[in-house]
C-alpha cells in the first residue's frame, strides 16, 4: 500500500469533550459500522467504560475513506481517554500516529487535559487539527474557545473545525482535514522490519495479542520475528486490523497499525514499547521505548479469600499486559495475609484496576487506603522509600521524613476562584501562579503535598466549582515534612492494613475520623468491637461497635426448614465478602474508608 494513502491519528481532548462520540460519527461516515450495529460510544467496549461513561483504554480502529476525488485512504483512528489517570494510554497512542484531532468543548473551552495532551502531542512532533465540538449547545462560544486555543496552547485556531458529534455537524470537514492536513507515515518499506508494541492484552485461547505500529518494512503470517527486549523468537500466527471487528490479514505494511499474535502464552515475555524485528534480518535502531511511568499512589491489594492468592497473582500478570501503567510487588500483611502492594497513576486508576481484576478475573478483593511514596532518612543515614505505612520503622529510627509535592494546575471559571483557593489553602497548598487565560477563565498553579490530592481532591474541586474546574498535576520533588503514623487498633490489636501516615497537624483529627468511619463501616456482630486510633502508642480515639442483639428466624412454619437454611446460606455468603481480622468481620469497603476524612472537615 502507498504510504501517502495512510493516515494514523489520535483523538485527544480533555475528559468528556466528546472524543468517543466523535469517533462514532467517523465510524458511521466511513461505513465501518452499519446503522443496525451502531450504539452510542461504540468504541467504549468495556462494561466499565459504559457504566462510568468514560474511556479507560485507547481503542484502535482501521477505516477506509474515499475522498471526493475518488482516492481511497486507510485511516487508523485511535480514540484515547481524557482523564489524567489514563494519560499513559494517550502518550503510547500518540507514538503510533503522525497527527491528532485536538477536540475542545465549545462551551467548556480549553481545560487542563486539553493543554496537557496537546503538549504531549506537540512534543512528539505530531500535527494537530483543532476541532471545536458541541457547537449545538446553546452555551457554545466558539470564538472564545478559539482565543483560548491560541492564547493558552499557542496553536493557530483560525481553521479550527466547528463540529457537533451529537448533531453530525462538521464530520466531512474533519475527514477532509485528516487527509489534507495530517502527514502520512514516513518509514522505509524496503528496510528490515521494525515495529513497536504500543498495547497488548491476554486472550485465553490465543495467548498474548499485541497491538503494533509498523515503522519500517513489513511483517507477514509465518515470519519468524524477534522481540528485542527478551531476544525471544516466535512465528507469526496471525495478523489483523480492527474494522472495528477484528479482521485477519496476511501482512502488515510500513505505516500500518494492527494486531499480531505469535503464540506467546507467558505475559512476561511481552513488553510494551518493545521493538519487533525479523530474526534473520534485524533492524538497526530499535524504537527507544516509552518513558517509564512512575506510579504515584500505592495501596495493598488482597484477595478476600486467602486461597485466591495465586489467582490474583496470575490476574495481575495478565492485566498488566493491558495496563502497563501499574506496578505490583508481593506484600504480606498480618491482618490480610498474602497480597500485593500496587502502584497506580491515581485514585481513579486504582479503582479501575480493582474493578477490572474483580470482573475480568472474578476475584473478590480488598484495597487498603492508598498512600503516596514517602522517603525517610534513617538514623544510620540511609535514604529509604516507604511505599506502605506498615513498613515504617519506629519513630526513633527516623532521622528525617520526606513527602512528595506536586505542582497542580487548575483551570476554572473566575466566579469559582474563591472556592478553589480555599480548597488549596485547607490542604497545605502554596500558590505559585495566577493567570487569566481569557476574560473569564483563570489558570491557578499551586504547590501542594501529593498526599493531599490523591484521594478526593478532584471530586472536591468539581463540587466547589459546579463541575467547571479541571486540573492537571506533575510531581515535583520531595520536601521534609512533619509526619507521623496513625495506627488503628481493632479489639486492642493494631491492624497493619488500616494504618496510615499523616501530617502531624492533621493526625489527631484524621485518627478520630478514621475510627468513626470504621465504626460506621463495620456491621454489628456477635461480639463487641472496639476501634481505637493511636499515634506512637498513645490512644487518641476510641469507638465501639455494640454487639448485635437480634438475628433469629422466629418461625419455621409447617416444617419448612429450607427457608431457614437459605437464610443461613445467604448470611454465609455475606460473610465471604468480609475479611476476618481476628474474630471481627470487616467489610471490604471499610479498609478504604479510613482515608475518607474530608466529609467531617
Amino acid at each position, binding site marked *: 500500500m502507498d504510504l501517502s494513502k495512510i493516515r494514523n491519528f489520535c483523538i485527544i481532548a480533555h475528559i468528556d469533550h466528546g472524543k468517543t462520540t466523535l469517533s462514532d460519527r467517523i465510524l458511521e461516515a466511513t461505513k465501518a459500522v452499519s446503522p443496525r450495529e451502531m450504539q452510542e460510544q461504540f468504541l467504549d467496549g468495556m462494561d466499565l467504560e459504559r457504566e462510568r461513561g468514560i474511556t479507560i483504554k485507547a481503542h484502535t480502529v482501521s477505516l477506509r475513506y474515499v475522498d471526493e476525488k475518488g482516492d481511497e485512504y486507510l485511516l487508523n483512528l485511535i480514540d484515547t481517554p481524557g482523564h489524567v489517570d489514563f494519560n499513559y494510554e494517550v502518550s503510547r497512542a500518540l507514538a503510533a500516529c503522525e497527527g491528532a484531532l485536538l477536540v475542545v468543548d465549545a462551551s467548556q473551552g480549553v481545560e487542563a487535559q486539553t493543554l496537557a495532551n496537546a503538549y504531549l502531542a506537540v512534543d512528539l512532533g505530531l500535527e494537530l487539527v483543532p476541532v471545536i465540538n458541541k457547537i449545538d449547545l446553546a452555551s457554545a462560544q466558539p470564538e472564545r474557545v478559539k482565543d483560548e486555543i491560541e492564547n493558552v496552547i499557542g496553536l493557530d485556531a483560525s481553521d479550527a473545525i466547528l463540529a457537533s458529534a451529537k448533531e453530525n455537524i462538521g464530520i466531512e470537514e474533519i475527514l477532509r482535514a485528516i487527509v489534507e492536513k495530517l502527514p502520512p507515515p514516513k518509514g522505509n518499506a524496503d528496510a528490515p522490519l521494525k515495529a513497536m508494541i504500543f498495547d497488548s492484552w491476554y486472550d485465553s485461547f490465543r495467548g498474548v495479542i499485541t497491538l503494533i505500529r509498523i515503522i519500517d518494512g513489513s511483517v507477514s503470517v509465518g515470519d519468524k520475528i524477534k522481540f528485542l527486549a527478551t531476544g525471544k523468537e516466535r512465528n507469526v500466527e496471525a495478523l489483523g486490523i480492527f474494522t472495528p471487528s477484528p479482521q485477519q490479514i496476511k501482512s502488515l505494511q510500513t505505516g500500518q497499525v494492527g494486531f499480531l499474535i505469535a503464540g506467546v502464552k507467558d505475559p512476561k515475555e511481552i513488553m510494551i514499547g518493545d521493538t519487533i524485528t525479523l530474526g534473520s534480518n534485524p533492524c538497526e535502531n530499535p524504537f527507544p521505548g516509552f518513558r517509564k511511568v512512575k506510579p504515584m499512589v500505592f495501596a495493598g491489594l488482597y484477595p478476600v479469600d486467602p486461597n485466591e492468592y495465586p489467582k490474583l497473582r496470575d490476574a495481575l500478570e495478565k492485566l498488566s499486559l493491558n495496563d502497563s501503567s501499574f506496578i505490583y510487588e508481593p506484600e504480606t500483611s498480618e491482618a490480610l495475609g498474602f497480597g500485593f502492594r500496587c502502584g497506580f497513576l491515581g485514585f481513579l486508576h486504582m479503582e479501575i484496576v480493582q474493578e477490572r481484576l474483580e470482573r475480568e478475573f472474578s476475584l473478590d478483593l480488598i484495597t487498603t487506603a492508598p498512600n503516596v511514596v514517602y522517603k525517610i532518612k534513617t538514623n544510620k543515614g540511609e535514604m529509604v522509600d516507604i511505599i506502605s505505612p506498615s513498613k515504617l520503622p519506629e519513630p526513633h529510627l527516623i532521622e528525617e521524613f520526606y513527602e512528595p509535592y506536586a505542582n497542580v494546575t487548575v483551570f476554572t471559571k473566575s466566579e469559582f476562584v474563591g472556592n478553589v483557593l480555599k480548597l488549596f489553602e485547607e490542604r497545605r497548598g502554596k500558590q505559585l501562579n495566577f493567570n487569566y487565560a481569557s476574560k473569564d477563565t483563570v489558570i491557578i498553579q499551586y504547590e501542594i503535598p501529593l498526599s493531599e490530592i490523591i484521594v478526593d481532591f478532584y471530586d472536591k474541586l468539581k463540587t466547589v466549582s459546579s463541575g467547571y474546574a479541571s486540573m492537571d498535576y506533575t510531581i515535583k520533588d520531595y520536601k521534609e515534612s512533619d509526619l507521623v503514623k496513625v495506627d488503628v487498633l481493632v479489639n486492642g490489636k493494631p491492624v497493619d492494613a488500616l494504618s496510615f501516615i499523616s501530617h502531624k497537624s492533621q493526625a489527631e483529627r484524621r485518627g478520630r475520623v478514621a475510627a468513626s468511619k470504621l465504626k460506621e463501616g463495620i456491621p454489628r456482630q456477635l461480639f463487641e468491637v472496639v476501634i481505637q486510633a493511636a499515634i506512637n502508642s498513645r490512644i487518641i480515639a476510641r469507638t465501639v461497635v455494640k454487639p448485635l442483639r*437480634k438475628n433469629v428466624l*422466629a418461625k419455621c412454619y409447617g*416444617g419448612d426448614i429450607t427457608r431457614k437454611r437459605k437464610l443461613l446460606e445467604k448470611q*454465609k455468603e455475606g460473610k465471604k465478602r468480609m475479611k476476618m481480622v481476628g474474630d471481627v468481620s470487616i467489610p471490604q469497603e471499610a479498609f478504604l474508608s479510613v482515608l475518607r476524612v474530608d466529609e467531617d472537615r
Partner: protein
Amino acid sequence: MAEGCGLYIHIPFCKTPCGYCDFYKVKGERIDDEFVNLLLREASLYREDEKIKVVTLYFGGGTPSLLSPFQLEKIFSGLNEIFDFSDDLESTLEANPETLSSEKLDDFKRIGINRLSIGIQSLDDEVLKTLQRDVQRKEILEKLQIIFNSEFKNISFDLIIGSPNSSIKSVLKDLSLLTNFPFVHASLYILDIHRGTRLFEEIKNGLKPTDDDEIAEIYENCSTFLEEKNFIHYEISNFARRGFECKHNLKYWKEEEYIGIGPSSHSFFRNYRTKNPSSLKKWKNELEKGNFPFEEVSKESDKKREENKIIFGLRLKEGIDSDFLRRYLEESERDFDSLLSKLTEGALVNVEDKRVSLTLKGYLLSNEIITFLLSRDFLSEREFDD
C-alpha cells in the same frame, strides 16, 4: 427417633388475609368439598399394607377452623383409615378466635381434635389494626371465654412481638391478661417483615418498624415473664407448661419424620425432603394425574442431616450433644473449648452435662451463632492473624 410420624394438613384459606402474612393462602370463607377430596386423595398416596404410624396430627393454615365440622370429620376419619393413628395421638387444630363457636368446638372435640392453637397475635386494637388483622380485642376476649368453657384442655396461643406500634408495655399487658386463662402453651413470634406483604409496603411508605434492640428487649422481658408463670422456654419461639410441649413441632427441630399434605406443605419422609407447590392449581393438577404433587424433592445427605441437627437442635432448650458438635466441626478438644469459651464468655451459650445450648441472649442471635460455628472455613483464616 420417636416411633411414628407427624402428619401436617395445610388448609390454605383465610377470610381476610392479614397484612404481615406470607404463608400460602387464598382468600375464602367457605372451603369447597372438592378441596377436602383432594386432601384425602393426596393422603391415600401414602397408603401402605402396613399402615404408616402417625403420632401427631396438625391442621395448619391458613385458617383450618374455617372447615365445617362435617368436612373436618370427613378428613379426620379418612386419614384415620389410611394411617395408623396412635392411641395417644396429639391432634392440633389452628384456629382464629373469630371463627369459633361453642357448637363448633364441641364438634371438633368429638371428631378427635385434642389440642387448639389459637392465633391471637395481639390484644391491642392499635396493633391489630397495624397488623391488618380483621378482629378486635373485645371479640377475642369473648371468644376466649367460649374456648375455655369448652372441653379443650390443651390450648396454646400465638402472639406476635415486635409489631410496629407495639411496645414492651403493650406486649406485657397482653401476656399478663392471657396468662390469666389456663393456657398450657404459648408461641411468641418475632415479626418478620416479608417483601411483598402489605405491611412491607407500609413500612416502605414510612410506617416505623420497631428497632431490633427494642425487639430484643421485649423478647427477653416476655421470656422472663412467662418463665415466672411456670412456662418453660423450650424452643426459641415456644413456651409450655411441663409436659405440654408441642410434640408435632418438636419433630421439625429433631429431624424426625413428618408428612405434609396440601398445597405448599413440606415433608421429611424416609430421608427425603419434599415441597408441594404453593398453588392450588398446580397441586390439584398433579393429584388428578395420580402423582405426588411435589415441586421439589431432595435426598438428605448425611452431612446435611448432621448440619440440620445442629441448626435446629440449637433452637431447643435441651440443645445438642457437645461431642457430636465437636466431631462435626472436626476440631481438637482444645480448639473446640476455646471456641465455646468465646461464646460462653459472651453469655450466648450454655455448656452443661456435655450439652451445648443457647442462652436467652443466644436465642436472639441464633443465626449469627450458627454461622459463626458452621463457617469454620472462614474462621480458619485466623491462622494468619494470631
